[in-house]
């Protein structure tokens, strides 16, 4: 079954008219910021259209179908009822983080807590940064994500969006993490977009935690693009914790660019949502980089979780390591598609990839597709991919000691998931995730 854009003309028209309206409103007679990029992006989106399952990258995820719904294009800045109390509940206990709150794609400074940020750290609204850090945005904004080939990046780039601007200057170590709280709160079904720019200076160190929350129970579709620049020898951890309700869908694109000797680790946890597509594209572009992508997804009901990774090794002596685990139950679907590209100059690359899916019901599906494309001759690359049920031997062993089948399975699944949790760089996060996972597996 192939769906085409023609079957969802309304949404496309709404997007184009929203684009034109915004062009008028925001320009105010002046040439709007990044006009060239936006026009190029809109033209590209128009040409690409919403991908169908004919596209190799969308083979297992029917995104056109998910978008064939009466979503209103959310007016940025639409009123919301989110209050400080709600946000307090979203904070992770024991993390002691600076908090930045993004409501419906707009940074809400009043709800945020970024007081006492150390010198050399800027956290705030991207739109504000367009004025306060104009030269920085000129250098970095829109330079990494692929407007020409990726429809969702194009759609995102066509709009003058708000989102998070984060900059950690050269040599700064952030002692406390930054938690970015994304809340959607609408009174009708909406499509919303967010644009982030994370810049980590040379030899900086930071942990950024992104959490996603539904404050209303309408259907939402979020298209978020985050460009991340990790400068020389910086050490960065980014956790994305997706635990929204059953009505929330998202396409998230994380575009990571690394300079030499830097280490970037992404930790992607998908415990909720309706349809979640995570694209992580990392380009270790200097010698001696490390890139770690850890992912855990637990999908039940009708959920659909698709993790799509690309590591593009362009420089020699880099190390990349991907470890993904999925637990799929009921009628849910899990997908892992990991591509490792080793360019001709990227000699001495070490690239490892492991994807394991456990399927708990006959109607649950898991697709795992590793892809290696290697053009250098002196490299070490490996991938392992398994999909299966829990070992009956293991379940029986535990039951023979008095554990119920349910207890046995959740203990085994917890252990399976815990391997990913141990990679988190902060004890409060490990405890928090362990708790969430245990709760999910015993639900």
């Amino acid at each position, binding site marked *: 079954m192939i769906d085409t854009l023609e079957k969802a003309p309304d949404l496309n028209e709404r997007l184009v008219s929203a684009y034109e309206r915004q062009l008028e409103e925001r320009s105010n007679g002046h040439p709007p910021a990044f006009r060239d990029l936006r026009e190029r992006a809109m033209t590209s989106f128009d040409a690409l259209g919403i991908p169908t399952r004919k596209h190799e990258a969308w083979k297992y995820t029917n995104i056109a179908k998910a978008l064939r719904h009466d979503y209103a294009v959310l007016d940025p800045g639409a009123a919301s009822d989110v209050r400080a109390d709600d946000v307090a509940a979203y904070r992770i206990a024991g993390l002691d983080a600076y908090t930045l709150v993004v409501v419906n794609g707009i940074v809400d400074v009043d709800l945020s807590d970024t007081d006492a940020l150390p010198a050399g750290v800027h956290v705030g609204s991207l739109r504000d940064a367009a004025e306060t850090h104009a030269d920085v945005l000129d250098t970095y904004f829109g330079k990494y994500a692929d407007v020409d080939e990726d429809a969702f990046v194009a759609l995102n780039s066509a709009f003058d969006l708000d989102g998070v601007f984060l900059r950690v200057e050269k040599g700064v170590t952030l002692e406390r993490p930054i938690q970015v709280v994304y809340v959607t709160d609408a009174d009708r079904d909406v499509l919303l977009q967010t644009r982030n720019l994370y810049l980590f200076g040379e030899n900086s160190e930071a942990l950024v935690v992104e959490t996603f929350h539904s404050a209303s129970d309408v259907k939402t579709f979020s298209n978020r693009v985050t460009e991340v620049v990790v400068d020389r020898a910086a050490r960065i951890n980014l956790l994305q914790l997706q635990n929204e309700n059953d009505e929330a869908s998202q396409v998230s694109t994380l575009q990571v660019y690394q300079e030499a000797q830097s280490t970037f680790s992404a930790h992607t946890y998908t415990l909720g949502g309706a349809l979640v597509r995570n694209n992580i594209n990392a380009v270790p572009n200097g010698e001696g980089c490390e890139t770690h992508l850890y992912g855990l997804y637990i999908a039940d009901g009708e959920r659909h979780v698709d993790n799509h990774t690309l590591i593009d090794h362009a420089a020699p002596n880099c190390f990349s390591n991907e470890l993904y685990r999925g637990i799929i139950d009921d009628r849910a679907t899990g997908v892992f598609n990991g591509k490792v590209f080793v360019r001709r100059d990227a000699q001495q690359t070490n690239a490892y990839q492991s994807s394991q899916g456990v399927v708990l019901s006959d109607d649950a599906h898991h697709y795992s597709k590793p892809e290696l494309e290697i053009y250098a001759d002196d490299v070490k690359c490996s991938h392992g991919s398994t999909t299966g049920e829990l070992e009956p031997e293991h379940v*029986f062993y535990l039951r*023979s*000691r*008095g*554990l119920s089948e349910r207890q*046995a399975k959740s*203990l085994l699944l917890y*252990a399976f998931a815990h391997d990913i949790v141990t990679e988190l760089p902060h004890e409060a996060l490990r405890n928090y995730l362990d708790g969430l996972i245990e709760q999910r597996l015993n639900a």
Partner: protein
Amino acid sequence: MLEIKNLHANVEGHEILRGVDLTVEAGEVHAIMGPNGSGKSTLANVLAGREEYEITEGSVTYDGQDLLDMAPEERARDGVFLAFQYPVELPGVSTMQFLRTAVNSMREHRGEPVMNVAEFMKRMREKADFVNLDHNLMKRSVNEGFSGGEKKRAEIFQMAMLDPRLAILDETDSGLDIDALKIVSAGVNKLRGPERAFVLITHYQRLLNYIVPDVVHILMDGRIVKSGGKELALKLEEKGYEWIREHAAELVAA
């Protein structure tokens, strides 16, 4: 306590047990010996409730209940314990968490309160010492990276923790050197008592030098062909299974 009558069991369409009869009373230790492929492990696994066996005929009664009708965990909670021939490794599953869940599921079943952590830890240490098991092993995942001997000792340690009434030991002696065999046997002997019964499944007589059985049975081709006292094991050791095979042929002919 345990009464097996005319038990027939298939695995993947092959009949492995062909009419086993066995009665075990509380306080007794029974040894079941037999050559490879005679059905010893099948019998152990059927008693523990492994699902890939199909029972085609016969019955097993445990304390007046139909054992075959009970889920593996129900059997365990009612006091049946199987020490596995090949204990599985469970990476990431904490030994302590696993055993606490197991111990408490049994206590709950008996209407006893949950054991608190301090009490549980104390019990763990005591029972580990029972089979000279390094306390550090308990901080690891279940059986992960244990040597063959450590795994077997860990099974007896688990048995001591769970305090069963009917313990089935499936070739617990295989792969043990003489020192380990003595330790394991001493552990089992300490657990012997008037309320508890043991079924020892073994290929060799050696184990029975250390755990002296009340009754020895010889299982061959899925049937118990001969039963006797502890001297039967010695005779078997001396004459070999061929002697029994001839004897069995006579029995069937008669």
